[in-house]
């Protein structure tokens, strides 16, 4: 800890110092029971299996995007050689490494592909000229192959940065930083390509007739905005337990608030770009997707999304005084996360083959799956966090991060 910028700084807690392992964490068990129980209930009443899988996909995507957002933050920090964010990077490394759990939990989606995606059902493809044309890409073996590739890239990157950063805690070798920086550029390329195609596969192909080339960017914008909200929230929560009280300052929280704000605006920009081009061109093959989201109750949901995902956080997070107050920033972060979940719900649920149009198909499975995933990811994240110091304590740029200040 000789790198402390300010020698007057008193000692602070930098570890989740408890001896509990992943499996003894009750959260993980409760999470597993919720998901398993929900799945079992659905499985033994055949007609509800599809509804369960919809909820499962909804919750799955929410936590996948948060973990991918963490991986993005690690990559971009190294790519830009960021100094300010060093004290936050370890938390992102720990969250990104939870992607192994996403890979594991992807199995039920593969098993239930036919219930979620029409292109995975031969009897529908046989009568659908468009799906036959798209079969070269949208078929089950290639889908599985692609997802194996995505997870190899994501987990490979997440573990690489997790491991090297951990090694640096022991050796203090600045060459490790250079190695991480070197991988961050090709890593970012791979990351952007894989998340784009993953968004096409996971969400866009739910309506396999529809296409939007900007969809990957839309997916990315919501992912990053909500990750920054999560990181701000995580910092505020662990500081309440007396952890990282000195090394993460109000300046860092202010910047997390700014980044959340910025990506909220970016989300709105991309969401509107997608909407306006489709609305203006007015081509039937494209407008159907939005039309379904303007029927009956979904019209109100669309307006709530517009106001709640853009106008509310835009106006709320604009002021510096709000971003620099923990309670208010935490409230804003919770709101952004809630709206991100709502955004995914709005993308996933209104599908022709999921049931009648114009009705919001709320089901207790939504809550069960969300809670199950939340508990599992809480346990996995906590497990990654408790293994080591919560800041990269011998990173060569640590002093810069500790002394970081915004220009007022």
């Amino acid at each position, binding site marked *: 800890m000789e790198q402390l910028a300010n020698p007057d700084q008193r000692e602070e807690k930098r570890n989740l110092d408890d001896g509990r392992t992943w499996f003894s964490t009750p959260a993980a068990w409760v999470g597993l029971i919720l998901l398993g129980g929900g799945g079992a209930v659905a499985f033994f009443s055949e007609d509800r299996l599809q509804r369960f899988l919809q909820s499962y996909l909804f919750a799955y995507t929410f936590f996948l995007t948060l973990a991918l957002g963490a991986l993005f933050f690690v990559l971009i920090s190294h790519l830009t050689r960021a100094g300010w964010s060093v004290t936050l990077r370890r938390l992102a490394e720990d969250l990104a490494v939870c992607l192994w759990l996403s890979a594991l939990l992807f199995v039920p989606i593969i098993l239930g592909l036919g219930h979620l995606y029409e292109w995975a059902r031969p009897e529908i493809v046989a009568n659908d000229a468009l799906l036959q044309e798209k079969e070269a890409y949208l078929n089950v073996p290639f889908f599985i192959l692609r997802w194996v590739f995505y997870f190899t890239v994501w987990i490979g990157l997440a573990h690489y940065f997790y491991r090297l950063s951990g090694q640096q805690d022991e050796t203090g070798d600045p060459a490790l930083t250079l190695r991480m920086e070197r991988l961050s550029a090709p890593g970012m390329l791979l990351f952007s390509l894989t998340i784009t195609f993953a968004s096409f596969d996971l969400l866009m192909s739910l309506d396999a007739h529809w296409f939007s080339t900007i969809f990957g960017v839309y997916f990315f914008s919501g992912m990053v905005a909500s990750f920054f909200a999560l990181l701000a929230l995580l910092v505020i929560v662990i500081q309440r337990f007396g952890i990282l009280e000195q090394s993460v300052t109000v300046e860092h929280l202010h910047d997390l608030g700014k980044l959340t704000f910025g990506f909220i605006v970016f989300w709105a920009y991309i969401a*509107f770009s997608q*909407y*306006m081009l489709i*609305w*203006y061109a*007015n081509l039937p093959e494209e407008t159907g997707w939005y039309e379904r989201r303007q029927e009956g109750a979904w019209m109100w949901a669309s307006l709530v999304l517009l106001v709640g995902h853009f106008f509310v956080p835009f106006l709320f997070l604009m002021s*510096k005084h709000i971003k620099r107050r923990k309670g208010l920033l935490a409230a804003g972060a919770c709101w952004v996360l809630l709206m991100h979940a709502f955004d995914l719900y709005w993308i996933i649920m209104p599908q022709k083959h999921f049931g009648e149009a114009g009705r919001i198909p709320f089901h207790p499975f939504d809550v069960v799956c969300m809670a199950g995933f939340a508990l599992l990811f809480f346990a996995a994240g906590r497990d990654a966090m408790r293994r080591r110091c919560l800041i990269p304590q011998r990173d060569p740029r640590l002093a810069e991060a500790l*002394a970081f*200040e915004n*220009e*007022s």
Partner: protein
Amino acid sequence: MDESGAKEHVDRGEFPGHRTASGVLAEFETPADLVRAAVRVREAGYRRWDAHTPFPIHGLDRAMGIKDTALGWIVLGGGIFGCLLGLWMQWWTNAVDYPFIISGKPLWSLPANIPIIFELTILFSALSAFFGMLILNGLPKHHHWAFSEDRFSRVTSDRYFISIEASDSNFDIEESRALLESAGSVGAKVVWEREHEDKLGSDNDGD
């Protein structure tokens, strides 16, 4: 050489004659000295003074007691104005003054108007940020008396300065200079109005 140079300036200041002072200019060797001195100047109650540095120094704003800028509010106002202007302009031109149907859309159709509204919001925000910044900083300023000091040119490389304006109500030639010297300046000097007139070669005001 620095030392003697500073001395010489100070000595000349001791024979003010009938000239009026522009202010006191004090030189510091390190950012830390400057920040400490800024606290002293602020605590002495000065209002019309400034610190000059080659690069931004963290904590200097707080040491000088600079209040939060009002620029954000100016930009917000500019942004709202641009937003409303874009909305009004498209409504007036396309739906009222010269109704014209474009690609089968309603005469006044919000989604089509949003890009212009957005662009005008950005444009007027940026313009108000730019001009608001200039006005709040008192720019453009073609000359400041500190520029007539040769040593002040080092402010762009390795020296730090504090200037106190003679127009400050607390200003006192001797006291202000003494304050800066006691605050760790390596050379605090009174700058006279006359000097920069000499430099400009305009000595025709009948002194």
